[in-house]
């Protein structure tokens, strides 16, 4: 191609082109650069770049130009780090600087080193980028605010719960004593009212204890004391303790223990808590006059399964995912004693801490079985 034609192309192309010789003197200044810098090539050719753009002295661009001329390095100055490398402006406005990406390339010709600068206008892509960044940082802020709010709320709930627990404990204690006849015969009219008060304060206390447990688990502060336990023994104990509860819901608890010892490493107190909640749920959501059965079996991989089965309305399959979350309660499963929906969440946290597994199967209007599996310890050890 004709040499003059090539020059014409370089002058008219739609990116900015500047060529410097080895002294960093401008030898080519194309139309695009004229337009955006507002300097005609007649003003700039033959001058050094630092004369025309004093702000580039000592800049990354200056270093990159030296690198190209002296070491033959190509360089990229992306808009990510250097938005406004050269003082170039948008055509339509006097003081909006162009956002640019620059490419710096060494060229040797006739034994001379030159440096080619290609300048790209990236204003549009950067605007999009900036918008995206703004949006994401907004949502990060919102998330942070929500997290802080939720933390404050948790702290608040926990403080209030602690404050409530002490007086409530003494109220239930006092009511218990009154009902027990310690202060003498209770008039028949008063007894009913005191029983209502006693029932509700007990319930309140258990909700507060649940809240505090959850808070502890979530903060990783619940302590577990592991020891070797025979689940047969533990189950029959807990079932015994809760027979009264079963009676109040017109059901019976039946225990099918295993003939062999079911030794696991567990925190007795916490596993009792799991059993108590599963038993209370089974009783609460059972048809009247049915048995709730507790069975212990060895299952695959040296695990033991404790299963608690009741007859009742059951739980739709759609709850498989969410039932163990806080406050999930099955719609339409009414029970005389209303819970807070925290029990199963606590159970899961406790079983997880034991590296165990908890779950349920349910056939609607028939049997519902909740189970948890724990690893058996070798009795030889």
């Amino acid at each position: 191609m004709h040499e003059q034609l090539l020059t014409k192309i370089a002058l008219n192309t739609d990116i900015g082109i500047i060529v410097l010789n080895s002294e960093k003197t401008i030898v080519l200044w194309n139309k695009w650069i004229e337009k955006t810098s507002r300097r005609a090539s007649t003003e700039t050719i033959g001058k050094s770049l630092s004369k025309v753009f004093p702000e580039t002295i000592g800049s990354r661009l200056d270093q990159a130009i030296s690198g190209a001329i002296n070491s033959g390095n190509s360089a990229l100055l992306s808009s990510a780090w250097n938005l406004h490398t050269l003082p170039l402006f948008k055509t339509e406005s006097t003081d909006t600087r162009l956002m640019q990406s620059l490419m710096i390339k060494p060229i040797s010709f006739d034994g001379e080193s030159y440096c080619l600068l290609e300048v790209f206008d990236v204003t549009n892509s950067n605007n999009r980028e900036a918008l995206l960044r703004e949006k994401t940082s907004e949502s990060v802020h919102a998330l942070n605010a929500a997290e802080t709010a939720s933390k404050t709320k948790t702290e608040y709930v926990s403080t209030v719960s602690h404050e409530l627990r002490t007086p409530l404990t003494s109220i239930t204690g006092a009511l218990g004593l009154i009902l027990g006849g310690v202060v003498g015969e209770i008039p028949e009219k008063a007894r009913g009212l005191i029983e209502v008060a006693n029932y509700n304060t007990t319930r309140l206390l258990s909700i507060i204890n649940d809240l505090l447990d959850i808070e502890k688990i979530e903060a990783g502060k619940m302590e577990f004391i592991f020891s070797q336990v025979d689940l047969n023994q533990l189950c029959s104990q807990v079932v015994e303790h809760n027979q009264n509860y079963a009676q109040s819901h017109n059901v019976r608890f039946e225990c099918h223990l295993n003939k062999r010892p079911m030794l696991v490493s567990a925190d007795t107190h916490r596993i009792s808590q799991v059993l108590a909640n599963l038993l209370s749920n089974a009783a609460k959501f059972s048809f009247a006059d049915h048995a709730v059965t507790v069975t212990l079996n060895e299952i695959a991989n040296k695990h033991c399964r404790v299963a608690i089965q009741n007859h009742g309305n059951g739980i739709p399959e759609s709850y498989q995912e969410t039932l163990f979350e806080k406050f999930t309660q099955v719609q339409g499963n009414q029970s005389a004693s209303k819970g807070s929906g925290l029990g199963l969440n606590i159970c899961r946290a406790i079983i997880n801490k034991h590296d165990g597994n908890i779950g349920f199967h349910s056939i609607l209007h028939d049997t519902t079985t909740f189970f948890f599996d724990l690893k058996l310890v070798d009795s030889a050890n």
Partner: protein
Amino acid sequence: MITLNELQHDTLTEIINIGMGSAAAAMSIMVRDEVNISVPDISFSSIDTIQDNLSGLDTNELASVRQGFDGELMGDAMLLFQGDKSLEIVRLLLSNTMTIDNNDFSDFEQEALSEIGNIILNAGLSAIANTLKFTVNSSLPIYKQGNLNKLMAPSDQTQTVLILRVDLSLETKQIKGYVIYLMDIQSIDLLIEHIDRYINSIPS
């Protein structure tokens, strides 16, 4: 396989570390925070065993910046980082709180990483070229992501590889990467010859 004697090895490591020092200085200005780059180790490998020399990187998911070079030495220089780490580097450097995931690695960030790679790769090349008196021209950086095989061109198969382990640290973060130079055997021989010449020129 090519091995360097102790003196050659130390000399080359030293030269490259000087180059990385200037790259770190340039980057510190860009990010307005202290950046340190060091090269604790260099070694040679053939292309088939390169994987064994990239310890600490999962070669299934790499981010790379590649630049060709030619002149007296010919080949390709590559900067390799763990794929997911590369985004972290850019974010850290841009001190940005964006929470987009890897797939959304934007052009903008690819360009930002290309520039980082360009600075590091040029610094290594210039240090070698200027100290050992070579003429080398480098081309523009190209960003690519993928497994090691995908990042290598078919023509790389015949090349010998000079591998530099690079530790980049900023604030409290340490990021491990590698710079590799893929060169033909003539270039490697020439490189060693120049190292020897340089060693002999140092008055002892």
